[in-house]
């Protein structure tokens, strides 16, 4: 009898609770904000996901340790998107409709993220990319999707081209990229900058992702007699390129390699195995941790503290800016949290942090956060940050 009365009471209470209108926004309670955090935690692109996702988690954990944001702690739901569109869409739909997150924060691969764009727009869910370049999903900008916290491929292409033209005084430029979306954007921006600044693209090689003999493209470039070579190759072809370019005696020609090809410069140098090949080697870098040892130490020590079992590569920092931006936005919003207000607040982001050379900014027609990067000279052992910040003007390659 007693248990029956109890359960009847509970049922009544539940009915009352369900009948009351929900006052808080989805994913927000008095004490918690639920954020869905995801990235490639398995599969071939795991190197671009694990450390950056950990870094983002670290930022959130740190905020929680310091008391949360306006009295609310951040609760994370972490998922693996395998850098595949079908998986990422499933993950986002699960996070939104089952885990009921406030915002979605994740994705290291632009093509996969683009698959979720329509859903996110339709359901009006704020989506913040983790560390993807994001070109295809921020141009044209859509209201709910924010990204490119370390710069788009257009930024890298344009920055390297600008450095080549301005500092290296190049006139004839050879560009080698992959035939994927990153390559396309990189090439378009680089080419536009070169031509705008009075130069000429004498060779453009688009290579397959799976290439294992890079002889032909390198020969083609050599035949075109460039002053500088701009590369958007991924890790394995980037090594092959540097090796072949060394083998064929082309090292007098500066080689400028986009970041995605060298997630860990020291490993890259070891793989190339030929210090002479890196005599004139440069790459862009969106962070201040090379130039400023204090910055590097701060974040790497923090990572060690949070993840003692794992040795983080330099790519770890790419997970930081998006998380810092989310935290900054939530802090600026105060106690009144709704998805629409989050989007409005994120749009007003203007975050200067010792970590990045430029402020992270969005705007009414802008959804890519960073448009200026450093250029670093790397000789195989030491990295030297070149003076100046090289940026994309928002027009080249569009």
């Amino acid at each position, binding site marked *: 009898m007693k248990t029956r009365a109890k359960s009847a009471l509970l049922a009544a209470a539940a009915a009352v609770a369900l009948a009351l209108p929900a006052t808080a926004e989805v994913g927000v309670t008095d004490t918690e904000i639920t954020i869905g955090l995801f990235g490639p935690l398995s599969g071939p692109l*795991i190197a671009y996901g694990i450390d950056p996702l950990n870094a983002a988690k670290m930022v959130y954990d740190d905020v929680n340790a310091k008391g949360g944001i306006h009295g609310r702690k951040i609760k994370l739901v972490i998922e693996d998107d395998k850098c595949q569109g079908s998986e990422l869409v499933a993950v986002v739909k699960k996070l939104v409709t089952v885990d009921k997150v406030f915002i979605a924060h994740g994705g290291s691969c632009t093509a996969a993220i683009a698959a979720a764009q329509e859903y996110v727009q339709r359901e009006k869910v704020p989506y913040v990319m983790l560390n993807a370049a994001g070109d295809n999903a921020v141009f044209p900008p859509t209201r709910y999707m924010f990204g490119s916290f370390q710069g788009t491929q257009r930024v890298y292409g344009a920055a390297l081209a600008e450095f080549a033209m301005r500092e290296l005084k190049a006139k004839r430029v050879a560009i080698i990229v992959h035939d994927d979306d990153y390559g396309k954007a990189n090439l378009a921006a680089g080419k536009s900058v070169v031509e705008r600044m009075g130069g000429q693209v004498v060779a453009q090689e*688009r290579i397959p992702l*799976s290439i294992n*003999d890079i002889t032909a493209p390198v*020969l083609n470039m050599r035949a075109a007699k460039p002053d500088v070579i701009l590369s958007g190759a991924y*890790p394995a072809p980037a090594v092959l390129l540097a090796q072949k370019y060394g*083998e064929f005696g082309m090292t007098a020609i500066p080689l400028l390699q986009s970041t995605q090809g060298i997630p860990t410069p020291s*490993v890259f140098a070891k793989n190339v195995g030929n210090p002479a090949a890196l005599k004139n080697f440069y790459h862009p870098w969106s962070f201040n941790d090379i130039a400023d040892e204090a910055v590097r130490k701060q974040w790497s020590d923090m990572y060690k503290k949070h993840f003692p079992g794992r040795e983080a590569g330099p790519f770890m920092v790419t997970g930081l800016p998006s998380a810092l931006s989310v935290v900054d936005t939530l802090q600026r919003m105060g106690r009144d949290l709704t998805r629409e207000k989050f989007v409005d607040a994120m749009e007003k982001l203007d975050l200067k942090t010792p970590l990045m050379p430029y402020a992270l900014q969005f705007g009414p027609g802008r959804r890519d956060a960073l448009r200026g990067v450093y250029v670093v000279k790397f000789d195989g052992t030491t990295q030297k940050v070149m003076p100046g910040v090289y940026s994309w003007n928002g027009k080249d390659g569009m």
Partner: protein
Amino acid sequence: MTLVLQGVASGIVTGCVYALVALSLVIVYKSTDVVNFAGGELVMLGGYFGLFFLIYADLAYPIMFVLVPVAIFVAGALFDRITLAKVSGRTFVKHVDLVPLVVATIGLSYLLKGGVRVVPYTEEVRRLPPIFTGPPLFFDDIVLQVQDIAIIGVTTLIMVALWVFFRFTLLGKALRATSQNARAAALVGIPVKTMRMAVWGLSASIAGIAGVMLAPKLLMTPDMGSVVMLAFAAAIIGGFSSLPGCVVGGIMLGIVQNLVGIFLSPQAIAVTPFFVIMLVLLLRPQGLFGETIALKKV
């Protein structure tokens, strides 16, 4: 002209790379009719074992060069003993249903790839140091690395050794007998099951050596097994049952890929092996040197 010659020279080297892997595939096909879709992953495994022995266990290069084929031999033999024997059931059935066997090799390939990927060390692209280091060699304007010559040398050596083995040694003849008529072979006292294991072990160890030779050239990621498709193309060009055919096919493929990259576009390089496979199978399925058994009688 130098462009083309350099393309040809580099193509020969890469072609030998494909040929080595193709040799491994053809050996197992000739003996068991099974197409080993895990061939590429065995190459990958060889490369990573090499890295492990060399860097972690800090062994000398020659020792590593011997250990790797042995280790992969064991892996291949075990795979046959445990998995394939179970899948094919009875050893004497000639018209064994090939689909499950091939599916088993596909399973193996994901097993190996997934297993290797679990190790965090493999997240970054790695390179196995080559056997021979040293300044590049110049032939007129053509550049080749010392390692490249080694690859050509080792490939030719292995091909010749295998040819001699299958033709003239007792074990080789026993293996051929097993593949032609397992029942008869059993009747004359050849241990068929052990022969099968040996063939898989041999094929795997060649793949392992290929891994050690190739890793300096191809760079190591858990996905480097995709080179298997190029090996298939090489084997098909040469004729899937011919050992010298593999080498010829591989070299031709390597050269064609580079010429396509120079004269058409590097973008087309990716599709060349597949296009070649379709073309050869359409026009001359037995390849250059193969037996005319590619076509069905019905």
